[in-house]
């Protein structure tokens, strides 16, 4: 009883946790397929791929992606190289200095990105001037500055990843290579580097992602090469469209794809290792029977399913034409609007009739309370008139689409439908 309650609450907790983590992403992804002009999930209008098309026609976004990729690659190369050098230094340095060195190397992670951005800009500008170069020199190039600026702290991340692996390295391996005649460079290239390869790959991925999503350092250094995050931030300032949701969806899909691929690869290595362990000597010598790609590899199965689904969706998108649906929706909206107008008219009609009837009644029964507007204050103090205005106000709020029938001075410009009609 108590146990099952515990289990249920754990599941509930997990559900809430993942909802919290992934909910926004899911909703944002869905909005990318809704034809509504504002990114929203409900009301659902039409399944459409038009936002993707719009995304790929947006030169600024495409240019931002290109810049982000170039800067990402530059940052990966620089950060991994510096991180590896820093990590190697940490294992070589005099033990008493190690803690101090570590603190210094880690410090850029703790410094706000804004500060790093500003200081990068100021520092390289000063150097640029010292060298007597102009504003168009290499040192004030946006790509150069952004790569340098981002690498100041991304290199520290890389070093942390690399140090963890390096600590498991047996220096005797390098010594053994030297002893067998290798030069220091050969020992590094043939022994240490292959050992570090998995960590270098992780560090490179980490560096790329950190560079790709960076905003606050880049915003000071990008110069004439705005990255994707910069472009997005500038776009959002003028209101967002579902094209941004489409971009988000692509990024989410790519992330899932690479995560699955990595998982499948790891699982595969594990299975191969087990197979090797069970293999006989003859099998190892040439024709080892490796497990088939999908056997016991859930991630690989999911990966293929995912890939097939993607291809299907892209194929559908190429032939799918939501024009009919959108037209239908528009028509439906117009119909709805007209219907509302009709209803409103009818209501007004009825109300007028009612009022006329009431007035007629009042006028007939008692003429004393001077219903006419002869007083200096008009009719404002009349209790009934207050009532009337209130109902009118309510009408205005609850039925904004009835505006055209109001014959107001604004001629219905505030009606969202009228805007759509213009389109």
């Amino acid at each position, binding site marked *: 009883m108590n146990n099952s309650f515990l289990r249920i609450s754990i599941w509930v907790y997990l559900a809430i946790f993942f909802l919290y983590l992934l909910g926004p992403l899911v909703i944002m992804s869905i909005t990318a397929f809704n034809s509504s002009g504002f990114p929203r999930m409900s009301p659902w209008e039409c399944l459409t791929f038009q936002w993707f098309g719009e995304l790929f026609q947006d030169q600024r976004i495409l240019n931002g992606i290109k810049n982000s990729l170039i800067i990402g690659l530059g940052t990966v190369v620089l950060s991994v190289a510096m991180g590896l050098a820093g990590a190697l230094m940490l294992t070589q340095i005099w033990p008493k200095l190690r803690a101090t060195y570590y603190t210094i190397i880690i410090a850029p992670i703790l410094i706000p990105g804004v500060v790093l951005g500003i200081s990068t800009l100021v520092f390289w500008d000063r150097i640029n001037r010292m060298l007597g170069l102009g504003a168009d020199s290499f040192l004030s190039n946006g790509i150069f500055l952004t790569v340098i600026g981002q690498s100041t702290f991304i290199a520290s991340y890389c070093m942390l990843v690399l140090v963890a692996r390096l600590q498991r390295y*047996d220096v*005797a*391996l390098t*010594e*053994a*290579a*030297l*002893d*067998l*005649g*290798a*030069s220091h460079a*050969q020992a590094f290239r*043939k*022994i240490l580097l*292959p*050992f570090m390869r998995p960590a270098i790959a992780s560090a490179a991925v980490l560096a790329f992602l950190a560079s790709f999503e960076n905003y606050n350092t880049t915003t000071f250094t990008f110069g004439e090469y705005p990255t994707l995050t910069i472009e997005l931030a500038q776009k959002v300032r003028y209101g967002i469209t579902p094209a941004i949701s489409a971009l988000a969806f692509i990024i989410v899909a790519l992330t899932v794809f690479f995560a699955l691929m990595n998982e499948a690869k790891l699982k595969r290595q594990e299975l191969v290792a087990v197979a*090797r*362990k069970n293999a006989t*000597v*003859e099998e*190892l*010598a040439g024709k080892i029977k490796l497990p088939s790609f999908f056997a016991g590899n859930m991630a690989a199965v999911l990966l293929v399913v995912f890939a097939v689904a993607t291809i299907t969706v892209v194929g559908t998108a190429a032939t799918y034409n939501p024009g009919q649906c959108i037209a239908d929706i528009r028509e439906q909206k117009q119909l709805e609007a007209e219907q509302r107008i009709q209803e409103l008219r009818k209501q007004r009609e009825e109300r007028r009739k009612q009022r006329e009837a009431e007035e007629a009644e009042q006028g007939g029964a008692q003429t004393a309370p001077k219903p006419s507007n002869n007083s200096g204050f008009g009719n404002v103090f009349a209790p009934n008139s207050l009532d009337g205005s209130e109902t009118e106000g309510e009408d205005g709020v609850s039925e904004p689409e009835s505006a055209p029938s109001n014959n107001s001075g604004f001629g219905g410009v505030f009606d969202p439908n009228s805007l759509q009609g213009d389109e």
Partner: protein
Amino acid sequence: MSAGVGVDLENLWIRFGDFVAVRDANVKINGGDFFSFLGPSGCGKTTILRAVSGFLEPSEGNVLIGGNNMRGIGPNKRPTALIFQNLALFPLMKVWENITFSMEIKGASSAERRKRADELLDMIALPDQGDKLPNELSGGQRQRVAIARALCAEPDVLLLDEPLSALDLKLRQHMRTELREIQKRVGITFIYITHDQGEALTMSDNIAVMRAGVIDQIADGKTIYNDPNTAFAASFVGENNVFRGKVKQIMGNEALIATNRSGDLVARISTTNQGKMKEGDDAMMFVRPEAFAIAPDGASGDHFVTARVNHEEFEGNAFNIFTEGEGGKEIKVSIPNHGQSFDDHTGQNITLEYETHNAVIVPAGELAAE
């Protein structure tokens, strides 16, 4: 045996800061020898090995390999190959790639390397195992791969840093004979580091006994066992009973010792100390457990010791008697088992006798820790 390349250490000093790891070592290792450095851990034997292989520059003195001074020559340029204590096989390379790493460095083709690897794998009795990874092998197999990898580099001198210490007893004993056989087959100089006197005695042509950075004695195994130079060598190599005392009288190669607890005893002065000891010197006398025999009761003289039996044990090839000599000193006696009847002596007083040439006298000195 082919005249391999010899190694000489000349006045070798190695210091780490204030700490002296190796103190004035002078060793001449003949080409083609199986030479062991034997000593407790921390005595500086690994330091010597690293100086020979080139990972360490001596503070003073020289390392000569084949008569050439090695000062300033890095480990990758020396004609030595080192087998590490933890073997240091490259974990990401297959066995055959490990073995032929030295050829890869020289730019040999893959086919050539494969061929050489197969030859060496045959030699170390691991045929067809070349495609495995090191961690897919057993401890003894890895051991042999490490040897093959070192031999593939065709060194003039093979250095082994306690390579058997990680193996279990049975395998260790097996690998001893195997190592010795490989050494005879390839005919190169082996320098072997160990703290296990059994390994050193069974395999080596010559042994250097080391204590705290100092080489006490260099000789073949038999000499070290029977004729130790120092109290340390006598107590570290094999089991030994020690009797402390003062030299009372020198009689040619023998001496009479006034022991502290067992009366006056006679023994041979160890060869290198003959003529150097004089009356009144502090001395130690060593008698091996197997050098004692049980004497008839009441016998007495300068080669008899009386003791009370504490307990006895039967070891298969010998009966061990643990006695308490006069003044609480423990003496171990081992009587070889020839199938004779053996009475229980527990609690009795017995008289032990030894032949004077089986007991040695050395100047008093530091003993090996138990």
